[in-house]
């Protein structure tokens, strides 16, 4: 009998090797032409090539930087605005339709504006990341505040919490678990959007790397970039997941 802990590590590894083998097998029997489906070996060689040329590392840093800046700007603006809106019903009534409108508008629709307003380089991509993450963050924070059990505010009143202290010591910790979840979700959106954002208006970045590979019909290089994007996305989500282990937020996930 295999222990559950061992199974937890073994099962995904088995699936991974299964998929790799399937990939290898399909390219071995030439089910698709080599230019349409690169073999695992081609991708491995391309990895080595991109790494030794320094391109891959440069693109990783460029993308991470853009996502980080766009994401931080939208968190720094979005969370306080969400807190404020959650506390004021008239603000909600006034702004929620507009926020919902923009939330459902694909951030990629802003590409022409991004290029026109910010030209090329980091800024249009940062702008697109901001547009992709700001609205969901505001809405999630706002909903979290509006659904805080009223008992917390009564207790706060009993113990004379007012103004900024009420905000920082009651409202904010009460919504923090949901805000962390919203951060994880919107980071996921940001990481998806960065690839598309960098296909236009950028000279480097992981999205640009895929675009370049497509232009050169180098699908082996495209797959190499895709693997990096997937792995980095997972890795950063694991980092953000560490926030849920903070002692002051555990209650939000264990009740």
């Amino acid at each position: 009998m295999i222990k559950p802990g061992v199974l937890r590590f073994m099962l995904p590894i088995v699936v991974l090797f299964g998929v790799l083998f399937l990939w290898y097998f399909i390219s071995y029997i030439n089910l698709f032409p080599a230019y349409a489906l690169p073999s695992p070996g081609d991708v491995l060689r391309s990895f080595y090539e991109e790494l030794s040329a320094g391109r891959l590392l440069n693109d990783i840093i460029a993308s991470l930087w853009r996502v980080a800046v766009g994401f931080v700007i939208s968190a720094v603006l979005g969370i306080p605005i969400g807190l404020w809106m959650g506390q004021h019903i008239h603000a909600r009534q006034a702004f929620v339709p507009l926020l919902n409108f923009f939330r459902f508008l694909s951030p990629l629709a802003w590409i022409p504006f991004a290029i026109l307003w910010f030209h090329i380089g980091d800024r249009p991509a940062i702008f697109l990341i901001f547009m992709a993450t700001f609205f969901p963050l505001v809405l999630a924070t706002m909903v979290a505040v509006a659904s805080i059990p009223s008992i917390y505010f009564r207790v706060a009143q009993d113990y004379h919490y007012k103004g900024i202290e009420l905000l920082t010591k009651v409202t904010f910790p009460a919504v923090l678990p949901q805000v962390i979840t919203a951060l994880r979700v919107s980071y996921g959106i940001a990481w998806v959007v960065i690839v598309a954002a960098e296909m236009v208006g950028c000279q480097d970045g992981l999205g640009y790397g895929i675009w370049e590979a497509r232009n050169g019909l180098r699908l082996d290089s495209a797959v190499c970039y895709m693997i990096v994007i997937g792995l980095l996305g997972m890795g950063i989500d694991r980092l953000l997941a560490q926030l849920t282990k903070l002692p002051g937020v555990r209650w939000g996930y264990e009740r």
Partner: protein
Amino acid sequence: MKDKSSASHLVLEKVSHSYGAVSVLKDLNLVVNPGEVVVMVGPSGCGKTTILNLLSGHIKPISGSIQREGIIRTVYQQDGLFPWLTVSENISMGLRSIADDVQQAAELYELLELIHMKDFAHHFPHQLSGGMRQRAELARVLAGDSDILLMDEPFSALDYQARLHMRNELVRLLEKRPRTVGFVTHDIEEAAQLADRVLVLSSRPATICHELRIETPKPRGITNHSVISAIEEIFKALGLQISNETGIN
């Protein structure tokens, strides 16, 4: 021993309240004397919680006047503790008026000892049983400068044994730190065990239909003669009959 009850004062005069067209209270007069434990019982939905909300000032009455003197704190049915704070931090909320850190720490230690929860000082509420959470909440309302405690069915979410235990705990804590208490419950046995005075409320719109003083010293066991006769009297006031053969009809 900190007797904070003498400074307190709670009076409702001809208070009426309604929610829309539904009249909940009608011309209610109520005086809670300093140091007294007044328990209000009544059918569910009769407006018990409304009375507490009026006493605490969370809602304003449609008519009548309310006088309150002293710092009021409320114990809720459940989840009154802030889940993001530890037991210590929650209790310390009640000690915010103490400026001196050393004194605050000493007071916190004393309270933790009083509720026998020193080992759980750094636990979060979700890591505790319902009874422990309510004990921590009692410590928080008793901390520092509170004068009046309002209790809104504080033990109703607990199982029967925990409830019995918590009633004894409350009596013990009030012995050590006397406070003026306004307590609402639908549990008649609880009222008979804890009250200095029981007010039986009628159904909506609520008025006080019966008043009963219980002089027997506390703690009172559930089989104590005064408790049993109080239960009988409350039953009668509520219009419920007890027959020896078939129990309650």
